């Protein structure tokens, strides 16, 4: 057991620094810098509110990520359920005392920014389920108790977020949760059954949707049915991306965004502006950068000794991937419009906080990848 003990020994500070994944760190740093430039462009080539605010968030959250990395992964393992419960409490808090904006109550006022607990839930659910599957015996994974437990864990936040209402985030929370279930070994036939049930119940689900959500689906199917109304966003978004061409219009030269044709250009539609100014080459470049990040996280998961780290890394990598895919599909007109930010690039504190926490835990897993968790 000597070897075992040695591996479980705490690393020194310098050992930890040495063990950081620098490729991942540099990629995240580059992404942050890039996001600042894009934010500068959305402000019309001036350092205005959005640029400053985005900058201050990076300045706070990037070190936070490194700080998180220096905590032992075991600590995060122990903290997982608590984190999940804390976020649930925050969700309860905002549903009563939250700030109401454009018809939904999802924010709570912190001094630096407005916190959106549902964004944190995207990480919390992965952490919570990763711990659950780390601890549950492989034989019991498909037992009724186990299945019921994880479904409850997923459903509680989803129902709360849906009631805010926030369809986009709840979809992202659901997919993050489901992927951990998948990784944890839940039988494939359950996924297939529930998918069939989902398809059958889809018409009923749609009948429960809010009128604006139905409109979004109709608009997605045919954006030209109301080009100045509901279809406006997606049409303008496609015009911006399409007109960017191979090389783009050039930094600060995106007419669609500069002349205010783009909706929500700071947040959900940030890729549109980026793609208009930097073109196909730039967009593929951005996707490559994201891919590097995802692959690094997957690699960290693969070398981790503990299944908790492995589950979290794989789950988080997949979550990042889903955020990107949902966001890009939306701005490219492949999916209906649901509010979903592009990680790091989009303006928004909660999303960045959640992502940075995720990266921090991944980096912690890297530093402690040889460590077993009982």
């Amino acid at each position, binding site marked *: 057991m000597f070897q075992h003990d040695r591996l479980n020994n705490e690393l020194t500070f310098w050992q930890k620094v040495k063990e950081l994944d620098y490729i991942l760190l540099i990629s995240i740093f580059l992404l942050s810098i890039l996001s600042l430039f894009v934010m500068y462009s959305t402000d019309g080539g001036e350092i205005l509110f959005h640029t400053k605010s985005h900058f201050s968030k990076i300045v706070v959250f990037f070190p936070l990520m490194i700080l998180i990395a220096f905590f032992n992964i075991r600590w995060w393992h122990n903290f997982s359920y608590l984190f999940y419960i804390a976020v649930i409490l925050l969700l309860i808090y905002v549903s009563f005392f939250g700030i109401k904006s454009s018809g939904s109550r999802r924010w709570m006022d912190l001094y630096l920014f407005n916190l959106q607990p549902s964004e944190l839930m995207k990480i919390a659910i992965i952490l919570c389920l990763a711990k659950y599957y780390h601890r549950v015996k492989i034989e019991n994974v498909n037992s009724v108790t186990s299945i019921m437990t994880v479904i409850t864990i997923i459903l509680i936040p989803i129902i709360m977020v849906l009631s805010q209402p926030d369809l986009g985030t709840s979809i992202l929370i659901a997919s993050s949760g489901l992927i951990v279930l998948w990784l944890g070994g839940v039988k494939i036939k359950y996924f297939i059954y529930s998918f069939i049930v989902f398809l059958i119940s889809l018409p009923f689900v749609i009948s429960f949707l809010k009128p604006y959500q139905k409109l979004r689906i109709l608009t997605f199917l045919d954006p030209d049915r109301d080009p100045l109304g509901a279809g406006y966003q997606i049409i303008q978004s496609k015009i911006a991306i399409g007109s960017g061409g191979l090389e783009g219009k050039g930094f600060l030269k995106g007419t669609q965004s500069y002349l205010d*044709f783009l909706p929500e250009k700071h947040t959900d539609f940030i890729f549109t502006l980026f793609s208009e100014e930097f073109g196909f080459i730039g967009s593929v470049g951005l996707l490559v950068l994201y891919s590097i990040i995802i692959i690094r996280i997957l690699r960290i998961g693969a070398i981790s000794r503990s*299944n908790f780290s492995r589950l979290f890394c794989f789950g988080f990598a997949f979550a990042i991937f889903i955020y990107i895919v949902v966001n890009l599909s939306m701005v490219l007109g492949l999916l209906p419009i649901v509010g979903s930010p592009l990680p790091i690039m989009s303006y928004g504190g909660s999303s960045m906080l959640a992502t940075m926490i995720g990266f921090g835990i991944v980096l912690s897993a890297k530093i402690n990848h040889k460590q077993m968790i009982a």
Partner: protein
Amino acid sequence: MISGNSGIRKTDVINRRMFIIGAAKVIIFTGIIARLFSLQVNENKKYLTLSDKNRIREWKLPPIRGDIVDYFGNVIAGNLKVYQLHIIPEQVENFNYLLTRLKTLLNLSDKKIEKIVKSKNKFKPWESIIVSENLSWSDFLKINNYLYDLVGVKPVMTISRNYPFSETYTHILGYVSQPNEEEILANETVQERFVPGMKIGKLGLEKTLENYLIGTNAIQRYEVNAYGKRINQLEHQKGKQGLRVRLTVDTEVQKACGKLLNDRAGSISVMDIYTGDIIAMYSSPSYDPNKFLFGISNDDWALIRNNPLKPLVNKTLAGLYSPGSTIKPIVALSALENKIVSPSFKVKCTGKMELYGQTFHCWKEKGHGFVSLKNAMKQSCDTYFYEVARLLGVDRLNVTAEKFGLGKKVLGDYFDFEKSGLFPNTKWKKNNLGKGWVLGETLITGIGQGYTQTTPLQLCLMTAQIANGGYSIKPRIIVDNNAVSFEEAKNKFEEESLFSEEKKLFENPKNIKIVQEAMFSSTNELYGTSYKSRIDDPKYQFAGKTGTAQVKRISMRERELDLKIEQIPYKDRDHALFVAYGPYINPRYALSIIVEHGGSGSKTAAPIAKELFKLIIDRNDLRNKQKNFEEIEI
């Protein structure tokens, strides 16, 4: 190590399942890149166009209208710089203060202020409101002096139509003004080029030649934002001024016509007898078309509209008159052509003629005694023409009259209000009045009364075609590319007439000569009706025929009273007419004059011709020397 074993098995499951997802991820990312490629590379052009459509908006500026010039190149309808005052609401700091300042500076009425406020609420804040369309120079200076105090006010220099000879050409040119919706929709070119503030031709040649005169819009391209606000100007595409149209008219003659008519109701037309060029075409009284440019004031409009002398009517083209005795050359010619009379044929005039119990009076109560054609024309003996008309019959007379252009529009489609007039025949009466022709009507038709209705320009054309030896000419008012000098024109249609029966209006050239000589004697021989207005100098000598058209039947009592013109109410006075051509040797010009209710042709109309011929013939050399220049094809 049970848990360890379970852990390893679990790790296997996780890894296996991760691999499946990893493959899915690659496929999905590839799909997204493919979508990006299709949007940005394959469909780039389409979206680039859409993006430009989004951001670029064009502003059309009013086109600059082409000039209209007279035969000598003097601009008779041109463009003038005018000063305007615009307000740009978005730049105004205090709208009420600005309005009170402007009100005192420019003496604006409350109504005007109200209108400005109304348009301010109607337009977007960056669209300018026109406060004053035509600012006087002193007001413009005043505004510029106080500009520091008038934030949001923009003094603008722009171009407006202008008629330098004011009322001289009104009835030919018409005028331009703001169009109403119907007028915009009626003309595709206008519809396409219309911008607010643009003016279009409302009347006359300005209206008819709209599509030639209008010009093309200058276009300013601006980059706009999503709300339509201009961000910056991308380019300025200059418009082309409308075509320059050259008319055949002579401003000096036209002005003289106005002066000679001196605001009496009437009309004068002058025509080149070979080329058909209209030298002058004046309808009196006239009005100043410049008043219509910026919207005529109610008082001015009432003054024009209510004037009993009807300035709004173009009398030359739309005024219908009995030709009176000016028809006699045609009656004589028709009789000669149809071999009804010979020059030596004589009729005894006793001052009246009885027919089926009805009495037809000659203007000379005592009668002219035995008169031949020449004497009858000279002294305008009515009895002679009653008898000739009776022998000729109205149908044969009608054929000759229509050949010479009566009952037909002269200028075709250039003036939509032109009237075609009427020269009756038996068929016409049967068809239109449903009654048979009565011989008595033939008699009065023979002296130009009755159903016959002619426009002054028709009489001018008729005279011109007698003067040129009986050849058909096509009158024109616009100089076109087919222009030929009058010698060429003369030779050309004498040649042409050998082949084309349409061009030749006579059977025997001698008959034309006889009529010409008779008209000559009427002006230049003692006892001729226009003898007093003759010019002896052969350079200016002209031949003419007077006419006095009754506007009502003269009762027996009035005939006995023999009232002086001043004693008759204006409305009942005869119209005075005169047609003439000159110089008698080598004739060149024909004219027709009518003064409504002017009394007798010899006293009122013929003296005008005397004045006019001097001027026209003096300007003949100038006109011949005038080279054709930059004509356009219409």
